[in-house]
C-alpha cells in the first residue's frame, strides 16, 4: 500500500514535469511567431554546444585573413547569409524575425564567445530544429576554406563600417521588383527618365 502511494506520487510528479516542459515548448501552439521560453533557449543553447564534437570545437582557423579574404567573406555573407542574419548580423530581417528560434545577434557575446571551431562547425553542419542549414557542400558553397573565411567575418561583425554595409547591400539577393526599383533609382540619379511604377512595387511583404 505504501509502495503504491509512493509510485503514485512519483508518477504524478513525472507527469507534472512532462506537462510543464510540453507547455513551455508548445506555448502559442506551433506558431513560429512565439518567442522561445528561457527554459527552451537554455536547453537549446547548451544542447547544440554539447553536440559539437570536442575536436571540432578546438579546431584552429587555417585561414590568415587578408583584406581580400575579408571582403570575399563579406560579400559571400551578403549573398548567402544576410537574408536571415542581416548584413550587420543583427538578424533583423523579414525571414530572421519570422524564424523560430530567431537567429542570434551574431555581434553579441553569445556568438562571439564561441570558438572559431564551433562557428565553423555550425556553418558547415547547420543547427537541427532551427532555420540554420548545413553548408558543407564544396560544390555549392566553395569548400571549407570559404567557411573559415566567414568565421573571420563573423568576428569582424561588431566592427562593421557603414561603407562595408553599403557595399554588402549591392550583393544582397533581390527579387525582380527590387531590381527594377534599383534600376529606376539609378536612372533617376543618372538624370534619365524613370519608368512609371507598377502598383505592386510599393507593396512589399513585411
Amino acid at each position, binding site marked *: 500500500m505504501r509502495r503504491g502511494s509512493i509510485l503514485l506520487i512519483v508518477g504524478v510528479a513525472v507527469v507534472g514535469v512532462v506537462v510543464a516542459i510540453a507547455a513551455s515548448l508548445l506555448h502559442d501552439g506551433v506558431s513560429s511567431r512565439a518567442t522561445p521560453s528561457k527554459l527552451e533557449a537554455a536547453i537549446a543553447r547548451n544542447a547544440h554546444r554539447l553536440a559539437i564534437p570536442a575536436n571540432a570545437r578546438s579546431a584552429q582557423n587555417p585561414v590568415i585573413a587578408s583584406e581580400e579574404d575579408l571582403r570575399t567573406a563579406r560579400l559571400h555573407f551578403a549573398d548567402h547569409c544576410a537574408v536571415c542574419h542581416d548584413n550587420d548580423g543583427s538578424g533583423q530581417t523579414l525571414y530572421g524575425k519570422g524564424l523560430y528560434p530567431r537567429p542570434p545577434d551574431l555581434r553579441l557575446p553569445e556568438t562571439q564567445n564561441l570558438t572559431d571551431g564551433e562557428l565553423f562547425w555550425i556553418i558547415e553542419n547547420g543547427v537541427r530544429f532551427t532555420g540554420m542549414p548545413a553548408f558543407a557542400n564544396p560544390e555549392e558553397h566553395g569548400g571549407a576554406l570559404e567557411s573559415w573565411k566567414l568565421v573571420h567575418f563573423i568576428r569582424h561583425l561588431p566592427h562593421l563600417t557603414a561603407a562595408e554595409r*553599403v557595399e554588402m547591400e549591392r550583393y544582397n539577393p533581390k527579387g525582380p521588383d527590387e531590381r527594377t526599383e534599383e534600376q529606376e533609382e539609378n536612372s533617376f540619379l543618372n538624370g534619365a527618365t524613370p519608368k512609371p511604377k507598377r502598383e505592386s*512595387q510599393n507593396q512589399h511583404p*513585411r
Partner: protein
Amino acid sequence: MRIRWISILLLLALAAGSVSAHGGKVHVVGTVEKTNPDSLVVKMKDGKSVEVKLAASTVYLERNNNQDKPAKLADLATGDFVVIHATPKDTGLEAGQVRFSRPVAPKAAAPAAPKAKP
C-alpha cells in the same frame, strides 16, 4: 510632336519622387528641398515633403557617370536628386544611405544659323 510631349511628361516625372518600403526599410526618392545639419527635407512626386533624420552612421554617395562615389553631407545641395534608404525610428525616418546626383542643367538652345543671303 508626340515625342516632345512624352519628353515633357518624363521630365516632369524626373523632378518627382516616391516612397516605397522593403521589409522595414523605406526608400525615399525625390529632390532635396532643404538640408539641415541633422536632417534632409525631400520633396516627393506627390508634392509632399518628408524629413529624414541623419545619423553619424549615414553613408553619402554621389552618383556621377553611372558610378557611386563616397561623399559627405556638405556635398549635398538644394535641388539635388536624392534616393534615401531609411529605417523607421521612433516617429520618423533615419537615413542609412543617401545617394544623390546633381541635376544636369538643360543645354541652352543653339542660336539659329544666319540665313544665307540670296
